[in-house]
Every structure is written in structure tokens, then in C-alpha cells.
């Protein structure tokens, strides 16, 4: 199989939850002097280990606050693990939130280049992909308009079009398929499916077991920052549904 695409090795993440947010000097000193700086330790992830081989499509399931997004952020390199390590081989396209790298005062066209550069691509490379991106996002008429005037659906479409057009090797999808209208959702699912054939590795977060079954062949299940199960998508989805039902 060669080298695995993602190796998550015993990763733990610790957050210090301040009771209140202290972000000015005066407050900080008052609290420091009066010993009111309380931190509550909170392990968002605890001893998570798993491996994703190239071409695998892994669904990440879990309730709100289970640590799904934290895990994806760690893999994307946004968060540094407190303990353990993450090794990623291949070009990674994080879609944690579509259009997060956009500048609101910039036009759609300018944002395509900016977003491309945020992912480490050259202007020349994006120019080659430019027509494809515009066509897929269906924003031909609005491409010179500042993004601040876009609807959230339009922003998501543009973000999705850029992130998939650059042909990444690893795609991280955090509930992004739930945005946009039904037509675009279908189109984006089809696009992701067409990328499977090129052997793309996918990490997919969703609350919908239906979508996970549709897209993934493997899945992991998180609960309160711990990895409680991993296996085939069918098994894990069944277990997740069981958990949902037992909580009721």
C-alpha cells in the first residue's frame, strides 16, 4: 500500500478553559493579584490513534462536542497536539469552513487567487484552473462582485469549487455538504465521487449516517474526546445509530 496518507499517533489535546475570557492587561493583573485566574483543564482529545491508507474514505462520527472538528483541525495542521503526533503525506485541502480564507472586500475573481495561495498554489496554476472553478461554481455573472455581497450559498459554492479544482490528495470535509441548495449538494457529491476514482483520501465529518454510508468505506466514532470504535462504515454507522437511540 505504500506509506499511509494520515497517521494519527496517540494524539491528545488539552485546552485551558478560562472561566472568563481575559484579554486585557488590567483584568489580567487584577485577576493575577487576586488569584482569580482559574483554568479548568479539558482534554478535547485523548489518546487518539488511527491510520488512514491512501484512497480510503473515512467518516468521522460523534455527537456535538465529541472532538470531531478538533481532530480535523489537528490533522489539517491548524492545532498542534499537546501530546502525540500527526503525520500527513500528500497535498491536503482543508474544507473546514467553505470560504474561510475569503476577503470580503475582494471580488470573487481575486478571491480565487487569494484562496489558492492560502493553500499554497501559484497564480499561474490557479489561472489554468480558473475557468473550471468559475464554471463549477456557476458564478459567471457575479465574479467581479465583492464577496461581501454574496449569499452564504454562493460563498460556499465558490469555496468548494476552488478546493476541489486544485486536485488535492487529501480532502477534509467538515459538514460542508450540508450547505447550498439540493441541486448544488448533488453536484458536489458527484464531484467528490469523481475524485474517488483518482484515489483521493477523504476525511468526512457529518451527522448524517446516510451521507457517511454514501461516501465513506470506513468510519471512526468519537465520544468525549476518545476514539471508541473504528471499522467499516456500515458497522460504525449502526453503532452510532444505536447510541443515538439509547440516548433518547
Amino acid at each position, binding site marked *: 500500500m505504500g506509506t499511509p496518507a494520515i497517521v494519527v499517533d496517540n494524539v491528545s489535546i488539552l*485546552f*485551558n478553559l478560562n472561566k472568563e475570557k481575559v*484579554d*486585557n*492587561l*488590567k483584568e*489580567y493583573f487584577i485577576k493575577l493579584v487576586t488569584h482569580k485566574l482559574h483554568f479548568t483543564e479539558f482534554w478535547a482529545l485523548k489518546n487518539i490513534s488511527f491510520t488512514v491508507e491512501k484512497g480510503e474514505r473515512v467518516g468521522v462520527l460523534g455527537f456535538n462536542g465529541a472532538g470531531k472538528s478538533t481532530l480535523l*483541525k489537528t490533522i*489539517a*495542521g*491548524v*492545532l*498542534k497536539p499537546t501530546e502525540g503526533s500527526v503525520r500527513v503525506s500528500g497535498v*491536503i485541502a*482543508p474544507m*473546514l*469552513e467553505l470560504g*474561510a*480564507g475569503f*476577503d470580503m*472586500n*475582494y471580488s470573487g475573481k*481575486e478571491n480565487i*487567487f*487569494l484562496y*489558492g*495561495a*492560502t*493553500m*499554497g*498554489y*501559484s*497564480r499561474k496554476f490557479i489561472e489554468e484552473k480558473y475557468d473550471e472553478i468559475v464554471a463549477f461554481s456557476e458564478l459567471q455573472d457575479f465574479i467581479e462582485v465583492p464577496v461581501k455581497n454574496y449569499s452564504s450559498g454562493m460563498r460556499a459554492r465558490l469555496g468548494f469549487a476552488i478546493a476541489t479544482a486544485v486536485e488535492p490528495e487529501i480532502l477534509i470535509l467538515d459538514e460542508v455538504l450540508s450547505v447550498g441548495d439540493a441541486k448544488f449538494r448533488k453536484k458536489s457529491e458527484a464531484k467528490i465521487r469523481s475524485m474517488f476514482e483518482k484515489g483521493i483520501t477523504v476525511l468526512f465529518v457529518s451527522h448524517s449516517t446516510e451521507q457517511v454510508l454514501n461516501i465513506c468505506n470506513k468510519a471512526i466514532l468519537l465520544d468525549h474526546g476518545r476514539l471508541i470504535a473504528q471499522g467499516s462504515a456500515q458497522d460504525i454507522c449502526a453503532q452510532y445509530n444505536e447510541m443515538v437511540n439509547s440516548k433518547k
Partner: protein
Amino acid sequence: MKKYLKNFYKYRFLLYEIVRKNIKLQYRDSVLGIFWTFLQPLLTTIVLVVVFGHIFGRNNAEIVNYPIYLLCGRLIYEFFTQSTKRAMRSIRLSASVIKKVYVPKYIYPLANVVANYITFVISLSVLACFIIYFFFFSGNPPHLTGWFFLFPVPILILLLLALGIGMILATLEVFFKDIEYLYEVFCLLLFYMTPIFYQIKQLKITSPIVNRILMANPLYSITEMFRCCVLYGRALNPHHLLYALGFALVVNVIGVWVFYKNQDKFILHI
């Protein structure tokens, strides 16, 4: 070290795009656009010349050419404060990206300083116009000599200084937003501490401590060196050169160090 250089090389397009964005957006929607980089220093210098050259009626006769003298100081001061202020806010303003995508974070303060530096270099054309005009049409022309061609030296040191200070401020700002207001006050102090519209020797300071404080300001050394090149036509003072360069280098070492020590914690605070 090699790893960092490789990473920087990969994200060089991002640096380019952000620099481009900052310059483009700064003047977007204004009628005169990029022409303001030229017009703004021109107009503010006229105001300063009128105020300090005429209304207050200071005796500026001993200064070689007062408008050029003022413009040199003003351009350098303006670049330094604008770029460091922008760099200071850069991390917080890019929070939406930093929280979602991996990017080397130093790109943001760096790009802000570089973008400001480019507009600063463009605005030097005002100075060129001043020099040409006063050279031909003034009884008090600037002394142009071969030393003129050394003018890149002080402004490169200025860039280095702004980068270092920008990194330190960007780091501080993430943890304590108050620094924005404090720095605003500091910039005002700096305006009066730097000999922009006066000469230090005119002040006839008797206290050696005050004198020393004024001399310790690296912007003083930089503006004086710059004026040596474009106005006095004299050799650079080696003390100024060594002091400014040393100061800028030390500030950069500190800036890079505090930034790298703290950058992994940024995401928890923005």
C-alpha cells in the same frame, strides 16, 4: 532551518497575494486611488511646513532646506508607524483563516510591512520631486553629492526595524488587545521624540539624560542618515549606522523568537 525555508518557499505566493491585496484594497473605492500615496505626503508636508515654518515662526534658517528636511522625517515616521500598526493587527484580522487552514502565521505581519514598504517606496517620488524642484528654484538647495546613492542603506535598515517591531507587536496583540491603545500613545510620543520638524541641537537640551533618550531612538539615527544622503550630501555617521543596524537586528531576533515561541497558542486566543 531548511524546513522553514522550504515552507516559506511554498507559501511565497501567499505572501505575494496578501501584499497585492493590501495595496489594492487600501485605495479601492477612492477616486484618486493609488495616486494618494503621492498626494498624501505632499499635502501633509505642506501643512507641516506652514505650521512649523511660518505660523510658529521658528528659526529654521540653519536647516539646509526645511521642506525637504520635514518630508524626509515625515515619510520615515509615517512608514514606521503605519506598517507596525498594520502588522500588529494582522494576526487578529486574519483569525478566520488561521483558525481554519494551516498557513505560516508570520506571513501576515510580514506581508503587511512589505505592502506598506512598497507604498512608502512609491511615495519617495514626492521626495524626488521636492529635491528636483528645490535644486533648481531655491536659494537654499539640497546638497547633492555622490553620497546620495547611499540612500537605500537607511531605508533598508528601516524595513528591518519595522519587521522586528511588527512581529513583537503582533504577538503581544494576540494576548493583550490593550497594546493597540498603548501603542497609539507611544506613536504620538515618537512623533515628538523624532526630529521630524525640529533639529535636536536647536532644542538646547541641558539634561544629558533627555539628550541620551533622544539619541537612543533608532528612528533618529535612520532619519539623520537618510538626510545625510539626500539633503546634506555628507557621509553617513558610522555611529548612527552601527547603532541603527544593531538595534534593528536585535529587535528582529527578539521578534522572531517571541513569535515562534507563542504562535501555536495564537489560535486559542483569537
